[in-house]
């Protein structure tokens, strides 16, 4: 008995060490950004690197706000990311429901077509999209960026949501239809609450896509006041010099909101929502 308990304790300890190790690997880049941003340029290239953030250098965060438009960039990124998330989910739910519940001719082709869109690299689409957006007066607008990001996320999200809707027992929908729910009502009142964890997960995917996207943000938008943080950050990389601590400070500010968004949403990403509904 004692041996079993001891073995269990060792196992727990080992597991904890592995988890801490993985956490370290994941979190270290963020920590290193903090350290680098608060290290003076002179010390950055010294032979003995600083391992702790330099408290004397905190002003770098204030400085980047005064010397650059980082506030605007972050705001633009947030608008694009939130817009992409909302629009992607809104556009993907009904097709996902249709793919899951309706049997119609060509359903396999529709499913395949969604995948095909994912095979084309973004860079290849820049030129034709530039021409199309020019015609539609969408160049130099955040709306344009939201639309183009949404076009990339909707197929993926549709497939993920289809899988989740497949998992909702059809009996529940039939019960709702007998209780007086319309088809659309069933989707909104019954199906969507039941796939909330998957919706949260897909929201994370859409948000990160919108937040991180660079190629279209760089090419379809040229006005400096509409730059997103990814473009703004890249602008620091100069031909002659790159102010590393400013880049890292902005990088940190660029990373943290995304981390917070994930933490906000992740508590909804829990399984077992349909437990207790139907037997088995």
């Amino acid at each position, binding site marked *: 008995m004692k041996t079993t308990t001891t073995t269990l304790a060792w196992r727990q300890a080992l597991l904890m060490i592995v988890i801490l190790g993985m956490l370290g690997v994941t979190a270290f880049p963020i920590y290193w950004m903090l350290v680098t941003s608060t290290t003076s340029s002179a010390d950055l290239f010294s032979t003995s690197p600083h391992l702790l953030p330099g408290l004397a250098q905190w002003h770098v965060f204030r400085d980047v706000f005064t010397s650059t438009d980082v506030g605007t960039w972050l705001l633009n990124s947030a608008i694009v990311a939130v817009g992409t998330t909302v629009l992607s989910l809104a556009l993907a739910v009904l097709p996902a429901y249709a793919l899951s519940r309706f049997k119609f001719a060509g359903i396999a082709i529709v499913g395949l077509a969604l995948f095909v869109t994912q095979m084309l690299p973004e860079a290849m689409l820049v030129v034709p999209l530039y021409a199309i957006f020019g015609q539609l007066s969408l160049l130099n607008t955040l709306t344009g960026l939201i639309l183009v990001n949404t076009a990339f996320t909707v197929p993926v999200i549709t497939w993920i949501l289809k899988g989740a809707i497949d998992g909702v027992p059809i*009996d529940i929908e039939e*019960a709702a239809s007998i*209780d007086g*729910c319309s088809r659309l009502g069933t989707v909104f009142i019954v199906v969507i609450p039941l796939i909330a964890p998957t919706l949260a997960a897909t929201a994370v995917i859409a948000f990160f896509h919108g937040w991180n996207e660079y190629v279209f943000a760089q090419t379809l938008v040229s006005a400096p006041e509409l730059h997103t943080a990814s473009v703004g950050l890249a602008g620091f990389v100069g031909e002659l010099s790159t102010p590393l601590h400013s880049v890292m400070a902005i990088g940190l500010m660029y990373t943290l909101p995304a981390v917070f968004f994930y933490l906000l949403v992740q508590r909804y990403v829990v399984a077992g929502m349909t437990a*207790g*509904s*139907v037997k088995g």
Partner: protein
Amino acid sequence: MSSISLKNVTKTFGAKTVLGNIHVDVPAGEFLVLLGPSGCGKSTLLRMLAGLETVSGGEIHLGQRRVDTLPPSARDMAFVFQSYALYPHMTVRRNITFPLIMRKFRWWFHIPVLGHLAKRRIESSPEVRELVDRTAKILSLTEMMDRHPRTLSGGQRQRVALGRAMVRQPEVFLMDEPLSNLDAKLRSSMRAEIIKLHRDLGGTFVYVTHDQIEAMTMGTRIVLMHAGEAQQIGTPREIYTNPANTFVARFIGTPAMNLVHARIDGGRLAIGELRMPLPAHLGVRGASSGAEVLVGVRPNALAIGTDPAQPGMAGTVALVEHVGAESIVTVRLDTARTAHDRDDGVGDEIMVTQAGYSTLQAGDEVRVSLDLTQAVLFSAESGRRISNDIPLPTEAPHAAPGFSTQH
């Protein structure tokens, strides 16, 4: 409360006919049970009544109203699912209130905050609250109104499903094997609860089951189905005592009715080497001497004796099962032939029930005598019931005859 009328209802999936020409009239207030083995089409028929399956042919009427073209929500029928189908994200109270909210639902209820407020307003209105609380009280759910389905036991979930059906006060209750997921003890108590519910609410019930005990104890009338056709429609007593064909005879009753091959020999019945005078009620109109028939006799209408001089079918005891109040004795017949084989192909065995603890043992030579006053006859060719009133059929054999509901 309304009557239901199914007029020549059929269901086909592609070229396959799963339900053929079902014709049933269910008077208002009746507890109709659709009974049959798996895959006989009973659940499909119930789902067609509810509007969850389309009707391929025929008509369904609820009272004077034709409903088979209406969506499920417009039929005023409540449905209790085998799987309960509760809304997992809603509390017990919301689950039960849901049909009442849907009754007053407007499109703008989909607007996030506004819709939420409107729904809560309906939920807390005195008449809705009173109705829901009363339903909960009947089903002993009052203590768990704020819990979610996942925290309830199977029996409690089934009661919530019943509550959700009751609260609508519908014309018709449809139930699809609602007790099949419960353990034996709970099943018998829920059975009693549903019978009481039917008595108190007085609605028209249509209940699907494969369990003959449920059918016999709950139903005021039974439709026994097999291979997509109604084999017999009648009260539990009629179906038990006057089975319309050999399928019904073997399906109802445990152990199943014995079917022994016999020949009509003048005024006598020849079973193996045994000759018995044919009782008046078994007199077969139109049966010539030599006609092959099946004698259907329930295990409790047979008697076993060990005296070789006793008239009866000679045989050997193959198995004795003691089931408490009675013993079930399986006898392998020497010369008489049965119409049913065991799953392993061994035939010519009949079952006899004896009161109390039988002293017989496997291998004993016995005589089985039958009480023909409790027997029924079937055509050996078609399997249909024959008697003075029902002549031996002359048309081609038909495995699944249609029966009228008029009695």
